[in-house]
Each structure stands twice: as structure tokens, then as C-alpha cells.
């Protein structure tokens, strides 16, 4: 294995799988950054568990992508040997951990979406994607519950925790629109019954959010302006720094194994 960037065939199916895999890997990596640093030991374990769930999802999706591409790329090459512009994850998941409130709000926004998304994807015509969806849905359901309980307690907690979690909601809100957008290639997969249209999930996603946000005595921003770019490889400055850490071993020692 060389340490140079690989080329991938950017077919609609390949891009589709990479987008979901990259979401899971990058968010999993972000959560793993909390290992040893969480506010309490119990939460350290919880965040690491969620990170491992997500990295497991990423592995299956990269494996699927590599197989459907049919070149000599495998899950490791796809994760370790693509540069920042080749990554297709949501801008939301690459945002820095910030304080605990930011991490929980990021997780809440994403898991509320992922739970709905994977549940619908269980009826995909692609048997492998349907199987990945069935496994991911159970995991996402727990991630959502975990984040929801924290949002409620932080929002309806002290003045300080309320202020911090509301600030996190306001900061991250503009990154949520991208979850529901699709391009022409993905539109074709939706028509073929391979993928589902995430745009149809937005109403239910908002209901999930509102139930928790109301109970937490918080509010959702009225601002509808949404930042986009991650799905097309245009990222915030944070992803390059994340990848330099995530990929450092394979870039320094090509082909290294445990």
C-alpha cells in the first residue's frame, strides 16, 4: 500500500456509499476524541461506545463501496488514502467537539436524522444496504435516546447548562439542511429504489427535535439559511486537521497493520 491518494470511480452508487460511510467515520472519529476527556467516566464509556458503533457502520459501508466499485480499493484505502476534497461527509459531523453541549447537540441532530434514515432504508431494493440499515437503525435509535436525555437535562438544568446547549443549537443549526439535500446522481438511485429520499424525512425529524427541545425548555432557530458543501467535497477547515490525525499512521507507514 502506497501512501499516495487513491482514485475512486465517482459513480452515483459509489458516491452514495461514500457519503454515508464518511458521515459515520468522521462522526465516530470526533467522538473518539473524547476518550479519556469526557466530563465523567460513565460518559467517557458511552461516547466511546457510540464511536465504535459508527466506525462499525463505516466499515460495512466502505466494504460495500469497495465491492461495488470493483477496483482494488478496500475499506482501509478508502478511509486512509483519500484527501479532504475526496471526503463526502456532512459538514455537521466534522465540526469540532467544542464543549459537551456542542457534542451532544451535534449527535442529537445527526442521530435524529440517522434513526429515521436507516429505518426507511431497511426497505431498499439493495439487499446489502437494507441489511446495513437494519443494523444501523438499532444503533442510531440508542444514540438518539442517549443524546435526547442529555439535551433535556442540560436545557432544563442550570442557567449555565441551558445557555451552553442553546448556544450549541444556534451554532450548529445551519449545518442541518445538508442532510436532506440530494444531487442528480442520488436522485436516480432514489427512483431505482436503492436509496430513499431524505427530503421526505424532514417533517418527522423536526417533530423528533421539537418534542425534546420543548421538554428541555430550549428553542430551535427561526433562521432557515443553510450551509452546504460537504456532499460535494467542499469542507470546513476542520476536516483537514481531523484527517491528518486519522490518516497519520498509514501515510507515514504505508500498509502498516496491527
Amino acid at each position, binding site marked *: 500500500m502506497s501512501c499516495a491518494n487513491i482514485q475512486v470511480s465517482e459513480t452515483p452508487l459509489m458516491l452514495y456509499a461514500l457519503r454515508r460511510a464518511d458521515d459515520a467515520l468522521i462522526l465516530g472519529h470526533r467522538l473518539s476524541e473524547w476518550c479519556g476527556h469526557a466530563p*465523567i*467516566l*460513565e*460518559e467517557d*464509556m*458511552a461516547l466511546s*461506545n457510540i464511536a465504535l458503533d459508527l466506525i462499525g457502520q463505516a466499515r460495512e459501508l466502505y466494504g460495500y463501496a469497495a465491492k461495488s466499485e470493483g477496483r482494488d480499493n478496500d475499506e482501509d484505502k478508502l478511509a486512509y488514502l483519500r484527501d479532504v476534497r475526496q471526503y463526502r461527509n456532512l459538514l455537521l459531523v466534522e465540526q469540532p467537539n467544542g464543549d459537551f453541549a456542542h457534542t451532544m447537540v451535534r449527535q442529537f441532530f445527526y442521530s435524529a436524522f440517522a434513526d429515521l434514515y436507516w429505518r426507511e432504508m431497511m426497505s431498499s431494493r439493495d439487499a446489502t444496504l437494507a441489511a446495513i440499515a437494519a443494523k444501523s437503525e438499532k444503533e442510531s435509535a*440508542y444514540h438518539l*435516546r*442517549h443524546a435526547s*436525555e442529555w439535551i433535556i*437535562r442540560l436545557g432544563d438544568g442550570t442557567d449555565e447548562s441551558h445557555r451552553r446547549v442553546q448556544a450549541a443549537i444556534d451554532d450548529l443549526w445551519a449545518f442541518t439542511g445538508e442532510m436532506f439535500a440530494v444531487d442528480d446522481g442520488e436522485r436516480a438511485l432514489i427512483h431505482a429504489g436503492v436509496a430513499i429520499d431524505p427530503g421526505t424525512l424532514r417533517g418527522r425529524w423536526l417533530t423528533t427535535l421539537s418534542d425534546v427541545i420543548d421538554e428541555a425548555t430550549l428553542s430551535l432557530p427561526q433562521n432557515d439559511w443553510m450551509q452546504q458543501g460537504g456532499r460535494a467535497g467542499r469542507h470546513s477547515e476542520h476536516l483537514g486537521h481531523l484527517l491528518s490525525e486519522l490518516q497519520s499512521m498509514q501515510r507515514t507507514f504505508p500498509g502498516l497493520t496491527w
Partner: protein
Amino acid sequence: MTTPNTPLWEVFIRSRNGLAHKHVGSLHASDATMALQAARDIYTRRGEGLSIWVVPSTAITASDPAEKGMMFEPAESKIYRHPTFYEVPDEVGHM
């Protein structure tokens, strides 16, 4: 980190083929819901259980170690209380 906001909870897990919940450890959490989630994350991550109980540690009344002579030694000298003096007939099979 014991604070009034995160009291201690005792965790009991019933394993896949176990009949009773067994004490596995303790954790800190703000309330019962969070304690249950933390118990799931800390004590069942390798498939250890199918059911979890969490109990506030303050709800447990414990025997006093200083009284262990009075409490437990009288039982030690009464081997006839153990059902080990009976011949079990073969026809009984597994008991």
C-alpha cells in the same frame, strides 16, 4: 466524582442464561434514566446481559462488618444444616 447531582447507583444484570439479577458494580448518574443508560454502556458492552436493574445505593441497608461474629459465625459450626448426609438414589437423577 460524588456530588449531590450525581448520586451513586448499584447495577444488577441478568445474563443471557441467568435466572437472577446479579450485582456487577456501581456508577454515578443524575437520575434513574441516566443510570440505566450508563449501566447499559458500561456493563453490557460485551453482550453480558438481557436485563438491567439500577438501585440507588442509599436504598441498600447493609450488615455491619463489626457484627460478623454475631451474624455469621453461629452458622459455621452447624454442618448438619447442609444437605450432605443423604444418599440420593440413582432413580432421582438430576437434582
